């Protein structure tokens, strides 16, 4: 059975159909790339999976259990962590405290939470910055902090929302390494990304959304040659 199943999910905001009958599955241990032009509904889909929005129609199953209509904190407890497109560190806390706050989910006491948090920081190369206040961190490190926080909830699955946006090539490579390490731990990843280089090198499979509908699904190579996908992207380029 697939780890995450998205079944005919639709989401409407008033008259706007942000998602229409989207169905696909994410298998355990894989990295699934979710791509599509701006406004295609990628983040909306994350918000539905994560529990911020209930779907208008359809359902989301995680390990066979229905998680649509649960609250985000319940979804997180079941093992789905997420990061945000606009990074949202707990600004006035130090890097370590940020991660401790999320590590408490699986820890009995503060010492336990701190252990999990320090592990997560080492994992994401933030260990040396642990006592800095997160407000002043450069973007690259804030993106890593987002991943560290989600990682500290010890998820089975991670939803990464544009973790690479705004990073320089060096930082991108660092983050690719981190994500590969996360995968090596057996954590399933669904990632939204605009950098084709990143998506093509990281993903095992790719799902393409356009105007709220799934237009393609397959290996990165298949996607790269799919005429529908090319049209969706070139169409956008022409009108720009």
């Amino acid at each position, binding site marked *: 059975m697939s780890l995450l199943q998205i079944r005919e999910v639709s989401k409407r905001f008033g008259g706007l159909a942000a998602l229409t009958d989207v169905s696909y599955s994410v298998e355990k241990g894989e990295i699934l790339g979710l791509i599509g032009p701006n406004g295609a509904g990628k983040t909306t889909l994350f918000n539905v999976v994560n529990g911020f929005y209930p779907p208008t129609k359809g359902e989301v199953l995680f390990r066979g259990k229905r998680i649509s209509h649960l*609250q985000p904190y319940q979804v*997180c407890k079941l093992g789905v962590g997420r990061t945000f497109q606009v990074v949202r*560190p707990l600004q006035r*806390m130090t890097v370590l405290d940020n991660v*401790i706050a*999320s590590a408490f989910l699986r820890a009995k006491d503060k010492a336990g939470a701190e252990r999990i948090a320090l592990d997560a920081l080492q994992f994401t190369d933030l260990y040396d910055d642990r006592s800095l206040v997160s407000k002043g961190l450069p973007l690259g490190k804030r993106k890593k902090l987002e991943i560290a926080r989600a990682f500290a*909830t010890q998820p089975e699955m991670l939803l990464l929302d544009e973790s690479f946006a705004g990073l320089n090539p060096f930082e991108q490579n660092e983050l690719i390494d981190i994500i590969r390490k996360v995968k090596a731990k057996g954590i399933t990843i669904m990632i939204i990304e605009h950098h084709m280089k990143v998506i093509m090198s990281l993903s095992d499979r790719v799902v393409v959304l356009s105007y709220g509908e799934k237009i393609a699904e397959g290996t990165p190579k298949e996607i790269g040659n799919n005429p529908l996908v090319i049209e969706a992207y070139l169409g956008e380029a022409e009108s720009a």
Partner: protein
Amino acid sequence: MKKFVPPIILAVLCLLPLVGLSSYVMHILVLVIMWSIIGMGWNLLGGYCGQVSFGHAAFFGMGAYSSGLLYHHLGISAWWGLLASIPVLTITSLVIGFICLRLRGAYFALATLALGEVLRVTSENLVKFTQGDLGILIKQRTWVEKTWYFYVILLLAAGSFFIIKKVMESKLGYYFVAIREDQDAANSLGINTTLYKTIALCLSGVLTGIAGAFYMNYMGYIDPTTVFPLYDISIVTVMVVMVGGVATYWGPVIGALIMVFLAEVIRSMPGIGAAHMTLFGILLIFIIIFLPNGIVGDFRKMIGLFKPRGALK
């Protein structure tokens, strides 16, 4: 070193009454300590958990009235109110939380402001139960001297300080701050924001209510306009914490010290005594512009403000 500061301050305060201070000075000290407790209660909810309340008079008044009504209707000592206010305030906080905590930011603040007023008007009009504007009078106060009141409130304050410190160092504390910084992010990191906001509100309400119950015993008289007022309690509570330092352990204490002394000094000045609220308002504007984190939070910055310009090099 820092660990020893609270016990040392506590010891000094314990010895203070032995010096033989005048009854007036003792009264001021009792008020300062009482306001620190209210400030600590507010700070837990507003400072650490980020849910700014403009209606803490609701909790203060409920505490005072739960103490006063026990005495008035059942004839038992109003000191039982200190204990009785714990369940009363927990239930009140749960009800208030259920109504208000689904609101965010300014809307939460407005809802709590309204609740404080609702309770004031209610207590004015439930004449049979609360005596309305007649108020409740304790015919014989426990002690004539202030000394014992001082020790009681000091004990309560020390207890509150200790509890808040323990809470803030635990999982609860981390969750409160996480909620303050970003509710949605906290939610998606597995924090049940509604539950933990409610816990913060209950703790905050109980602490404030206990201060209210003490007030009943100490002053011996309450009426709706002295324990449920918007300006003299709700707004001053916010000011105590803002002036002292939001989300700091000592902020409410320093804030209470400054606000109570300032109120006394201004009130005793002929001519402008009646304008103390105006002066408080000006002080608040000054604090928000120059010391947004309060005196404790912006201590270094404040020192810098008073240094001559050249010295900053």
